[in-house]
């Protein structure tokens, strides 16, 4: 087929396709998905989610099982969201060889529930000492942590106020609290809830939030000339976090779900492409050859058709532990039977067309007839069925992943759901962990269903209603 004809063909098809509204809608959705892959780093807070999904250090600043931020919009008690504060006022003092730097971070607190943790980050060389304190809107200054760093050539420093300032917080709270009536274990105190609450009775038991501007002060003593602490910032592990919350391993679900888009598309499209190409060729060849060859090919086809797909895939995955590529191959190995029956009957019809006979009468070879005359006619059908196999492939992969048999080097929606299931998300009502990944599977399926059904509608004029 010449390029110009191909273009004309596409143009015709497009003109038809444009009329099917839901098909267009599907295309728009697909475009959005592809866009999400392309601009992934700009729309997620954790762009390395895909490669470091199972690396706990990558997620440690996040809260555990926090709901999404927009929950605040619908709730009367506002929770502090996760936050990173990098901006700070910096001053430095020299006392002989020793340097004293002081960085002041401002934090605007206007919520009802405090963040779960406040963490100091920095990069240290030498053996500096880090002292953290907080200045509250009511003027109290509380010294929180004093952390000397052992000699190093450079390492990440991470100081969690929530973990390391229990005693200081307790001591501060105890000054106001009536301890007679309420015996409170020191270990039970949540430092952030003390620090961000009004200094009055009940601060330990029933804290009420103290809204206003807080100053987080980091004082760093640098004993040697070359000692440095740089890239300092505070992270707040919020009571709500990210667009879709976090899971019980502190992972940001939004980042994970977006990272899953490209794998879903890859699995779906690659499987559908291979399977449909094999299936269409198989069907046409079987129809064209006819006779005992056709019978034999049909028997093989029926053998494959009689295989209960998912159970076999599950057992194969459980036993062979395949990676994602092998999994795609496995699915293609069974998916190809899908279009065969229709293609074969279409092929038989086309074979009966006089122009095939005419080509034979001119002495055209079998391969010429199959590839020049028969397959081009089936291409629209092939595309339509391809679109309709994409969701199946995605669902099958998710199902296998749900059982915990997926490829652990990548992150797919099925795996997130597996984690949710084993993490007790259903039981504990952590809906933000269960809904999004499944919704994305369903959305992706819907996208291709829209496109596929639209193509189907164009291809079967008999089903047209007007």
């Amino acid at each position, binding site marked *: *087929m010449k390029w110009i*004809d191909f273009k004309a*063909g596409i143009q015709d098809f497009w003109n038809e396709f444009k009329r099917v509204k839901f098909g267009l809608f599907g295309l728009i959705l697909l475009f959005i998905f592809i866009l999400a892959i392309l601009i992934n780093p700009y729309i997620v807070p954790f762009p390395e989610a895909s490669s470091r999904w199972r690396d706990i250090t990558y997620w440690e600043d996040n809260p555990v099982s926090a709901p999404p931020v927009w929950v605040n919009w619908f709730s009367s008690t506002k929770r502090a969201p996760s936050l990173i504060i990098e901006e700070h006022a910096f001053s430095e003092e020299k006392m002989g060889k020793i340097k004293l730097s002081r960085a002041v971070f401002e934090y605007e607190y206007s919520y009802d529930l405090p963040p779960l943790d406040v963490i100091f980050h920095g990069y240290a060389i030498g053996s500096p000492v880090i002292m953290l304190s907080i200045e509250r809107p009511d003027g109290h200054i509380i010294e929180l942590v004093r952390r000397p760093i052992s000699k190093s050539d450079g390492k990440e420093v991470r100081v969690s106020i929530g973990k390391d300032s229990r005693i200081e917080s307790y001591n501060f709270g105890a000054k106001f609290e009536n301890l007679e009536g309420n015996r409170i274990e020191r270990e039970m105190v949540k430092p952030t809830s003390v620090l961000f609450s009004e200094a009055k009775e009940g601060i330990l038991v029933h804290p009420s939030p103290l809204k206003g501007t807080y100053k987080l002060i980091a004082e760093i003593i640098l004993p040697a000339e070359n000692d440095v602490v740089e890239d300092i910032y505070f992270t707040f592990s919020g009571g709500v976090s990210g667009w879709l919350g976090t899971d019980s391993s502190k992972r940001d679900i939004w980042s994970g779900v977006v990272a899953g888009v490209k794998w879903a598309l890859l699995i779906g499209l690659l499987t559908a492409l291979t399977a449909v190409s094999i299936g269409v060729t198989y069907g046409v060849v079987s129809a064209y050859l006819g006779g005992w060859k056709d019978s034999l090919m049909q028997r093989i086809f029926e053998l494959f058709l009689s295989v209960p797909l998912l159970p076999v895939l599950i057992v194969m995955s459980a036993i062979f532990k395949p990676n994602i590529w092998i999994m795609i191959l496995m699915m293609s190995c069974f998916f190809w039977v899908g279009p065969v029956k229709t293609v074969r009957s279409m092929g038989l019809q086309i074979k009966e*067309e*006089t*122009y095939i*006979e*005419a*080509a*034979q*009468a*001119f*002495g*055209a*070879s079998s391969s*010429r007839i199959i590839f020049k*005359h028969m397959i*081009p*006619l089936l291409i629209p059908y092939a595309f339509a069925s391809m679109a309709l196999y994409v969701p199946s492939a995605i669902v099958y992969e998710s199902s296998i992943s749900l059982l915990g048999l997926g490829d652990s080097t990548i992150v797919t929606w099925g795996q997130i759901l597996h984690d949710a299931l084993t993490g007790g998300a259903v039981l504990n009502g952590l809906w933000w962990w269960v809904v999004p990944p499944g919704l994305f599977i369903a959305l992706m399926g819907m996208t291709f269903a829209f496109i596929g059904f639209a193509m189907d509608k164009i291809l079967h004029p008999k089903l047209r209603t007007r």
Partner: protein
Amino acid sequence: MSEPIIKIENLHKWFPVRRTITQILKGEYVWVKAVDDITFNINQGEIFGLVGESGCGKTTTGKLLMKLLEPTDGKIIFKGKDVTHLEANKLKEYRRNVQMVFQDPYASMNPRFRAQEVLEEPLIIHQVGETRAEREKIVRRSLEEVRLIPPEEFMQRFPHMLSGGQRQRVATARTLVLSPSMIVADEPVSMIDLSTRAEILHMMKTVQRELGLTYLYITHDLSTARYFTDRIAVMYLGKIVEMGGADEIIDNALHPYTKALIAAVCEPIPGRSNIIKEVPIKGEIPSAANIPPGCRFHPRCLYAKPRCQEEEPILKEVESGHQVACHYLFD
């Protein structure tokens, strides 16, 4: 107009039928005898008509001549050479010489090919014409031969952009690009509207005269056969029952079946609407898998005798060039 270009000798085509298990166990075979022992010659430059009802084996005969089907038995001799069974390369050569026009011109062209591509395809398959330009020249010439003038206007059209008549012209032009010596035309006008039917037949006849072609014209329509052909063979259930000059057969039909066929033909002549014109035939054509013994026409024949049920009649010459297979006529 004297040398036979093709000789068909005792040609058979039996299709096997799917057997039941008991039949397989008993070793019985069931055949659909689509073509059952036919013999005829077609002379150089002649138009030979093959007439019969659907299922009589006329199309199968055409396909056998085209080598689209392998004969079960018998011989096909083309220009003195036995072409019954051919190897791939010889077959290709044979197909350059014998071409086919199909019943439905629209169906006989790939709807995705432009007229030019349709015409080019045989050239590409047979590697005729070194360059595109050379091939285009041949395509142009053959379009002119079928009176599609100017050819440029039609070359870029898809089949659906052509009218029925134009399509059949393109289909005919396609058979001409390889300059064959014989064309098998299988009901070339039955799918075409009456108003253009005559046009196509006229064109085909002109081309035949100009290029000295030989036609095998397969049809169920006796009236076009009379107009178009020189000689006619009437087939019934895989056998030729009568053969002879076109005028001779129609004006002087001898076989009861031919007579029935002629009687059944409608003609645009006034004053027939009140007459019930009897067709001298009984019942309907039986399946080719279940051929009656003896003369295969006897269950439907009004003149059948006991002999007809037992003995199969053979073609006998009654006049020069007029052969009939019927016991009734010779008793």
